[in-house]
């Protein structure tokens, strides 16, 4: 697939579908706007509903490289933006004893001695890329500020070198599991997209697209049961990825029609807490 701009939300939806990502109207609308307005998208929602997958699929759609910055507590400038390769700088200084300091200084602070990290890499890339900033809610609020310049101006300022601006427009996707409130400054720069659990119809299509060899009827039953499971008050409702795992399990076990008994026996694939499993198992045993 080539890098082309998509001219309507419907086209975005079709393009995503062609790489097996089933979006809904809202998702495709927001993605379309993001491309049009060159704005980052902040995708929020429970774990396992396809937030990261959206970025990957967009990279596939456009045939772009995906650059990923995985966030974690303690992430800093030198891991996210750039770092001077000072060992190399030191060797350079030692190798060149006697050179005029002014020459040397401008030399050791050149791009040759720069270690690029994901954000700078995305900015400097000659071909347009998709930049995925994953689980941005994991960094401390102070670290968020690092991202701001990249997100709004698509540039990185390096004191010794000046400003590196993007030559091509990267498509930026940020994901958050909402474990904390992100700063207003960050949110202001992004379009906001909340992805929740899909409705049974969309989930059925997702199962059909992602699980090879599953038939329509089983996919339908799986999606409806999962919806029913989610309607209970659970510690951790099953995500789409768990639904897919469950569908695969059933397929491997050779199940063609799901009985309450089967549900009870395979529930541990869908749910991750014993108290959740007990609760749902009890519910389904009655029916």
């Amino acid at each position, binding site marked *: 697939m080539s890098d082309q701009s998509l001219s309507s*939300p419907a086209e975005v939806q079709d393009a995503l579908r062609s790489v097996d990502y089933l979006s809904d*109207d*809202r998702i495709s*609308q*927001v993605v*379309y*706007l993001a491309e*049009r*307005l060159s*704005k980052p998208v*902040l995708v*929020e*929602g429970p774990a396992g509903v396809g937030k990261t997958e959206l970025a990957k699929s967009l990279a596939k759609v456009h045939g772009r490289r995906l650059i990923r910055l995985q966030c974690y*507590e*303690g992430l800093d400038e030198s891991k996210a933006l750039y770092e001077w390769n*000072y*060992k190399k700088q*030191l060797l350079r200084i*030692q190798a060149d004893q006697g050179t005029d300091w002014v020459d040397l200084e401008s030399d050791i602070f050149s791009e040759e001695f720069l270690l690029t990290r994901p954000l700078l890499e995305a900015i400097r890339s000659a071909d347009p890329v998709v930049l995925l900033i994953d689980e941005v809610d994991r960094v401390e609020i102070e670290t968020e500020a690092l991202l701001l310049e990249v997100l709004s101006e698509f540039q990185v300022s390096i004191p010794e070198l000046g400003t590196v601006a993007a030559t091509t427009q990267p498509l930026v996707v940020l994901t958050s599991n*909402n*474990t*904390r*409130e992100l700063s*207003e400054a960050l*949110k*202001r720069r*992004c*379009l*906001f*997209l*909340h992805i929740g659990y899909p409705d*049974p119809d969309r989930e059925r299509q997702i199962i059909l697209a992602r699980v090879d060899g599953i038939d329509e009827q089983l996919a339908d*039953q799986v999606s*409806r*049961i999962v*919806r*029913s499971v989610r*309607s209970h008050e659970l510690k951790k409702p099953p995500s789409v990825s768990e639904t897919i795992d469950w569908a695969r399990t059933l397929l491997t076990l050779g199940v063609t029609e*799901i*009985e*309450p008994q089967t*549900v009870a026996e395979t529930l541990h694939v869908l749910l991750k*807490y*014993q*108290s959740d499993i007990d609760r749902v198992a009890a519910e*389904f045993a009655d*029916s």
Partner: protein
Amino acid sequence: MLVDLLGGFIQELRAAGIPVSMVETIDAMEALRHTDISDRQAFKSTLGATLVKNARHHAAFEMAFDVYFALERPAPESRSADDPSEPYDLDGLLAELEEALADLDMARIRALARNAVEALAGMESGRPVGGTYYLYRTLRQLDVDGLLERLMGRASAAGSVSMLEERLTREELEGRIRILRDEIETEIRSRLVADRGREAVAKTLRRPLIEETDLMHATRSDLEALDELIKPLTRKMATRLARRRRNKRGRLDFRKTMRRSLSTGGVPVEPQFKSVHPSRPEVFLLCDTSGSMATFARFTLQFTYAMASQFSKLRSFAFIDALDEVTAFFEPGVDFAAALRRIATEASVVYLDGHSDYGRSLEQFWTAYGGFLTPRSIVIVTGDARTNYRDPRPEVLREIAEAARAVYWLNPEPYAYWDTGDSVIGRYRPHCTEVREVRNLRQLEDFIESVVVPTHGAKVRALS
């Protein structure tokens, strides 16, 4: 025209408490240029993506959208209530509705919802109501329970189905009834707008955002909604309490530095530091669970429950006029509702009459558990400090404060009421590291955001 309407809409979002900045307004305008605004859903998605950046503000956004971009509807005529309108073919409507719901034909459901509201809601012009009354009136006459049963009958007529299948079908149909209900609600709002204008309707419908709901008077469903929001807060609390220094590096590790310097020819290029182990705080939570605090107590216990999963060393206590440890009820994996029930029945928190007695409870805590307090302990008390004119015994709190690293007091009463009547918060205040008014989730968030645990040396001393 659209610009004016958007301006009003954004005003309404702000009035509802959603922060919408100037930049976002401009973004929304820009985004609309790329949006097919004849498509209502696309229009709504665009506004949602550019203006509302928090999922929990979505309900308020929906409401404002319904009002500001209401469908064109005639205003209800003013008619007196006892004027019987011409007989309406209710059965015909019901039959059609049943069919539309069975096929999930959205366009038809919408049209029928419109008919139903027109015929059944009996809307009167000029009444300053929010529409809930009309909604229930319409739903009652549509007999939604009966509708559900007929739909079920229709589904099972296709052949014998298993119990599981029946259950799934029922849940699905209930979902469709909810769709109908939402359509009717939207329709009613449109008519209210036609009658009274956007601003007036928006004002009647406005609800405080969940984070601003007063915890003393929260409803059950509010508390359930809060559940979701508490979890991330406790995580933050855990990291805030564990962090003592901004500087994560410890002392210079000379040995490591020398070793490292070998690779650079003996020049110590990279100084190495010892890593600091973040201290694990021990938290003691004391919750007033008396009658006057019932709603707030449920919230604090909710909070405690969530905290218990974050701290390995958390001990929680409930008190009214006696204090009892409830840590065991919040073991990992225990259901919150079950824990609440057990506390209500098994914990002995009442000594005399079930009216709060802070002095006695603190005293009891100090004698029974004071020995466990160390300079690493953090004590958090939640309650209104209304001790029913009993002896508050602030000197006991002072002893607790001296033994522990910090004492925080979270008071759910408005600041203006502190120290009025039987409130003795002022007597406890000198012994606390900090006393906070926490009446809603936002204030709790602020507290957690700003809480600074005093370090070893600089322990805050009582000011008295």
